[in-house]
């Protein structure tokens, strides 16, 4: 242990701790901007500078290791002046659109500038000029709001492995760019949006579709259907001041109705449907000697990763569309037929914790009815924004519920939003299919939790099923390499692109680096889903009465010809294209 004093307060911390960590022990917060725990620890922004007795100059607390007898001062006049000047220099080359910026009131630069009473026009000099990159269907880059903290670069490289953005040029000309200044759309980006989730400012944001949705709602010809993904309910409350991990599903349903959506269904229903098809496909592959291990196909970022980086593993991907796409396809075929509505007049909105879903809806072969399965995708943040600017007092709303029949869901559908959830849901159904009798316990606890790679082996009526679960593409890559080399014999592999799964997706409410340091967003939000599963009366997808009815009335059985036409899809090799 190391003993030191911070602002004259004695503290004892582990060797190798940084000043930033030691200060926390002393009950002192040191502001940061570029620091992102375990992901971006580069001491670049100089906001966290402190005075150390005997040191030649101010030191960066986020990377400076403590040593015995050290005396640190985090709040002297010199320190405050330095931080303020650094902020004012950042502001001198910042597009100050703070009044209307999407990150206003949730911007780390704005918060600090306010706290330090910065004069935003103190330094007048050259301004960097960059065009916004609107090339993709899922996100927008605005380098004029970028402060070069490199958090996006670090998450893209260290967490998601793809490193499609990096600092380009140097000095005043430094900016974050794709190789050869190409548009993001021409780079092998997986669309996960983790860069958006970690950006301290408004330099990265999703491509908004709120106006399109409002236009559809206002169109008397259109029947507008909305459905949220499992993970949305575990996080949207954060936008309205609820503690992280509060499930506000009931209020969300009520708010959706108040926004004017004609039908409030649920993508959890699509998740249950996915399990029916995916479990069937898995058993079929096992019996018929198909390509194994089979990969889940719910996560569009993961799909893009395979298509760009491991096209040789495309045959391993389940042909199942994602729950969102299955849901949309079912609305525009089965439900349209049942209700006697022309699918042309149905507008389906998915509310997603994800930016890649905005890309997914534009994929080829995702238009079972002849019209796009999904018309618009709103992130969790966008739905919250719509609720806020519609004058809906979310916190005061009574709990509502979904509409039938495509809203009904089971506990298995709910846990799709967390890493391991799809695997567990599939095992519940596949196990009963194989054994022909009800499970003693539906809890497959080995596949739960936020660990990057989880493995388990189950004996299902004599059939050995070895499974693996990965989240975050660095972990996915590790599995892909092992599978390519034939170093493992998994039957079924679940991959979610974002670390911790969809609950931590790129479309979820943005939490500051400070909050992320104190709270594990992944497990808090996941717990909200597992709690809902635990309380559910039906916890197996194949026991969802609405799903049973759907197969009886429409699809026949899982994997039927009709199911294949409507609920399955295909992939493209993007590496060699």
């Amino acid at each position, binding site marked *: 242990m190391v003993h030191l004093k911070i602002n004259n307060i004695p503290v004892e911390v582990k060797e190798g701790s940084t000043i930033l960590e030691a200060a926390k022990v002393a009950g002192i917060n040191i502001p940061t901007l570029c620091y992102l725990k375990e992901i971006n620890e580069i001491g670049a922004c100089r906001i966290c500078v402190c005075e150390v007795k005997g040191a030649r100059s101010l030191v960066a607390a986020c990377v400076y290791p403590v040593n015995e007898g050290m005396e640190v001062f985090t709040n002297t006049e010199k320190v405050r002046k330095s931080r303020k000047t650094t902020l004012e220099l950042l502001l001198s080359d910042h597009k100050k659109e703070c009044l209307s910026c999407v990150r206003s009131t949730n911007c780390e630069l704005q918060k600090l500038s306010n706290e330090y009473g910065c004069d935003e026009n103190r330094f007048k000099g050259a301004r960097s000029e*960059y*065009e916004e*990159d609107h090339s993709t269907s899922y996100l927008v880059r605005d*380098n004029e709001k970028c402060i070069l903290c490199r958090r996006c670069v670090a998450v893209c*490289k260290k967490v998601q492995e*793809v*490193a*499609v*953005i*990096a*600092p*380009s*040029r*140097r000095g005043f000309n430094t*900016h974050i*760019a*794709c*190789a*050869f*200044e*190409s*548009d993001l759309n*021409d*780079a*092998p980006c997986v669309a996960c949006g983790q860069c958006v989730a970690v950006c301290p400012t408004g330099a990265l944001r999703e491509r908004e579709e709120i106006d399109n949705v409002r236009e559809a709602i206002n169109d008397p010809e259109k029947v507008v259907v909305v459905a949220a993904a499992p993970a949305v309910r575990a996080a949207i409350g954060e936008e309205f001041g609820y503690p992280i991990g509060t499930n506000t599903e009931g209020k969300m349903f009520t708010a959706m109705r108040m926004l004017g959506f004609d039908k409030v269904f649920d993508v959890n229903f699509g998740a249950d449907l996915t399990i029916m098809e995916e479990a069937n496909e898995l058993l079929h592959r096992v019996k018929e000697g198909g390509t194994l291990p089979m990969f889940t196909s719910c996560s569009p970022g993961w799909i893009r990763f395979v298509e760009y980086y491991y096209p040789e593993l495309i045959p391993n991907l389940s042909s199942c569309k994602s729950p969102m796409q299955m849901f949309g396809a079912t609305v525009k075929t089965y439900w349209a037929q049942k209700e006697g509505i022309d699918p042309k007049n149905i507008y389906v909105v998915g509310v997603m914790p994800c930016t890649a879903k905005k890309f997914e809806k534009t994929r080829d072969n995702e238009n079972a009815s002849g019209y796009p399965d999904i018309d618009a995708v709103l992130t969790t943040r966008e739905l919250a924004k719509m609720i806020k600017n519609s004058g809906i007092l979310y916190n005061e709303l009574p709990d509502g519920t979904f509409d039938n029949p495509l809203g009904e869901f089971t506990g298995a559908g709910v846990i799709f939003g967390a890493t391991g959830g799809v695997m567990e849901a599939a095992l519940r159904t596949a196990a009963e299919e194989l054994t022909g009798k009800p499970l003693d316990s539906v809890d497959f606890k080995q596949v739960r939790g936020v660990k990057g790679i989880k493995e388990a082996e189950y004996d299902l009526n004599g059939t050995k099923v070895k499974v693996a679960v990965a989240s975050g593409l660095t972990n996915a890559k590790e599995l892909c390499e092992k599978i390519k080399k034939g170093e493992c014999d998994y039957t079924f592999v679940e991959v979610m692109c974002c670390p911790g799964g969809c609950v931590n997706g790129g479309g979820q409410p943005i939490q500051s680096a400070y909050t992320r340091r104190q709270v594990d967003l992944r497990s808090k939000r996941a717990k909200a889903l597992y709690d809902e599963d635990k309380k559910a009366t039906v916890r197996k997808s194949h026991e969802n009465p609405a799903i049973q009815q759907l197969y009886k009335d429409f699809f026949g059985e899982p994997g039927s010809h009709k199911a294949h036409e409507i609920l399955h899809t295909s992939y493209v090799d993007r590496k060699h294209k």
Partner: protein
Amino acid sequence: MAKKIDVPFNGTKEQEERLKKALAELKVEHGGQGLMIAALQRAQDIYGYLPEAVQQMIADELGVSLAEVYAVATFYAQFSLYPKGQYKIGVCLGTACYVKGSGDVYKKVCDTLKIEGGQCTDDLKFSLDATRCIGCCGLAPVMTINDDVYGKVTPEEVEGILAKYRD
């Protein structure tokens, strides 16, 4: 933001083999670590510049992304994304020349050839670099084209000088 940088590339099979061999040697020398700059230097020795196809080869060999290679290639002044032209134009931006108006001469060359400093025209005829003092301040502002030196250049003279080198 600049448009995508798209530079013509006519690398030969022989150059590619030389690069592959050089990279393999570097890997042994460096034990697989910290060889990005050395790799870019070798590649620039072989090709004269670092177009996308060459950087992609380096990325693949080193197991990093193209954006990461590009980041290093654009950080160091020694690396060029553009080939050098048949006629290498230098405009001195040293103190004496600059005071005498070489900045305007430089800008005129850029505008006439539609390139920026460090770049090359699409027909590979002219490339432009800003130089530091070349030791003939009495002639300021000075412009050079290969071994030819032009002194006391005015922006108005630029087009006439360049015309001499066009076919």
